[in-house]
């Protein structure tokens, strides 16, 4: 069944009022859904688009609030969030980044969805608008929620001012326009030579991006020395649940998870081995 109706919502609330209805899907920039619509495999009769919903903005007020419909090309210009910028720049090619959105990227299945690990490391929250109102869970919580994510509209991502140092590494088969094999984003708050707070998030190696709790625990409360970095990297790799796909096997993705985390940590600490 082809798409019979495309509704261009003028607000997140308007989109949310239609979101849960049968045969209806929400669409951001369209990079995920448009190929399916063209191929006739979308499986929805009605598509509700957020293109005109007023969600393309970046506002700074102590925190950075990024509208979910901000193109990745815009995210790739956020100088004060270098890890996020680097993740956005790594997605596909220029013309696609002008279409793809921050919000849509958070719905992309592995190995796509490069922004989530960085946003996890930055303790981002999301603003979700549902038929009954809105809520602002932590991204980490939202990503692990069960249930139909199509019933609410992701309106905004809020990134606190990063505390500490951040690092991001993404491995792919090609330097550009290449699905990730593994990626890692980290944030470390160092106090008195020891790690006071650690965030280690990994992407492309599990159905959704996730925080590697064991890696964070290994790092917290001790100096970030080579042994800690190595063990945290292995702990993160153990938290991965990669699958084989056309680009890489599960075996290789797990190996590269450890490498990514280690390199991201070294990058954050400014002690790259290269």
């Amino acid at each position, binding site marked *: 069944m082809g798409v019979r109706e495309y509704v261009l919502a003028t607000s997140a609330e308007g989109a949310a009022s239609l979101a849960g209805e049968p045969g209806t899907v929400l669409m951001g920039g369209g990079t995920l859904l448009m190929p399916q619509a063209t191929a006739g495999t979308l499986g929805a009769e009605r598509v509700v688009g957020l293109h005109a919903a007023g969600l393309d903005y970046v506002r700074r007020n102590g925190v950075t609030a990024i509208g979910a419909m901000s193109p990745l090309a815009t995210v790739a210009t956020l100088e004060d969030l270098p890890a996020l910028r680097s993740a956005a720049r790594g997605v596909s090619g220029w013309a696609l980044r002008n279409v793809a959105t921050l919000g849509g990227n958070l719905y992309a299945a592995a190995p796509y969805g490069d922004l989530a690990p960085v946003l996890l490391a930055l303790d981002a929250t999301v603003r979700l608008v549902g038929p009954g109102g809105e809520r602002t869970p932590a991204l980490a919580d939202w990503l692990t929620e069960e249930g139909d994510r199509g019933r609410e509209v992701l309106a905004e991502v809020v990134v606190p001012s990063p505390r500490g140092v951040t690092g991001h590494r993404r491995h792919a*088969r*090609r*330097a550009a*326009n*290449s699905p990730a094999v593994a990626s890692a984003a980290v944030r470390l708050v160092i106090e008195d030579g020891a790690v006071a707070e650690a965030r280690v998030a990994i992407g492309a190696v599990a159905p959704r991006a996730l925080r590697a709790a064991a890696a964070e625990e290994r790092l917290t409360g001790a100096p970030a020395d080579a042994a800690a970095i190595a063990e945290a990297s292995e702990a993160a790799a153990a938290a991965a649940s990669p699958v*084989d*796909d*056309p*680009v890489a096997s599960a075996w290789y993705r797990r190996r590269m998870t450890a490498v990514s985390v280690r390199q991201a940590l070294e990058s954050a600490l400014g002690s790259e*081995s290269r």
Partner: protein
Amino acid sequence: MTLLRGRGMAAVNYPTGMNLGGDPSQALVHATTTGAFVITLSSVDLGQGLKTVLAQIGAETLGVPFDTVRVDTADSDTGPHCMGTFASRATHRAGNAIIRAAEEARNEMLEVAAEELEAAPEDLETDGEGDIVVVGSPDKRISVTDVALAAHFKQGRTISGRGLYMKPKSDLDPETGAMDPDSTEAHACTVAEVEVDTETGQVRVLSLKSAYEIGKALNPALVEGQITGGAWMGMSHALYETTAPYYPALDHSPGDFNNYLMPGAAELPEIESTMLEMASANGPFGAKGVGEMTANSPIPAIANAVTDAIGVQITELPITPEKVLRALEEVAA
């Protein structure tokens, strides 16, 4: 992490054309009323530049300017038969057919001109710029346009030619494999340098330096295009491409350009090449087929360079980072 450097080389031959069932192509050439020439045939340009190089062959043979020669191809209602564009055969076969057709048309053109100039045809020469001149008497000349007009409206004859080139069918001895499968052979040798990241298993091709012996470069820029494109494709075969990433299993067969991996602009190595020209007796102006060969020598050259870097052969394509890491573990064990 360590970066291992390696260098490898490979040398290849590549046959021009096919033989099974006979391998012919035809061309027709005729002059328009105003002295342009149309080459009519059915050969297909895949992007390698066949329409251009065939016009060059026609113009050279006719002795007329390149711009006055048209190539009208690939319409079965007008173009005579061609087997097709494959087996590095198109320039060789269609080119030879055009030479024959154009020689016939040229002879007619000179006969018409001879009558207009009151000279013997064998005393005439084309100047390549649109005139026919009497050898030794540069003032006695006539334009090809005037010759064509005279042929059409005064002398009442055509300026045209027919050409066919055929590689005859080769009988093949099923016991010994004795056969004559090709018309000529081009050759290439590539030296590849690679860098292998022992932590990621990624192979980076640093340079591909190749020599290609191609008989004659009829259009050097088009040959260069085949060389650069072929080097890239060979590198792509060596390191990236497969429709079955878990061969022979069918799982995860790529269906798009995200998953069907080919190197991008950032992966380009330094590509340097040199062309040798050792004319083939049966090639048009000595040319050999070059289109396919250019992709061949880089594949084993890169594979051999990887061996040089890591100390063990990876003999299954593509040489993925995973295979490299597993090979390195094997070496270490």
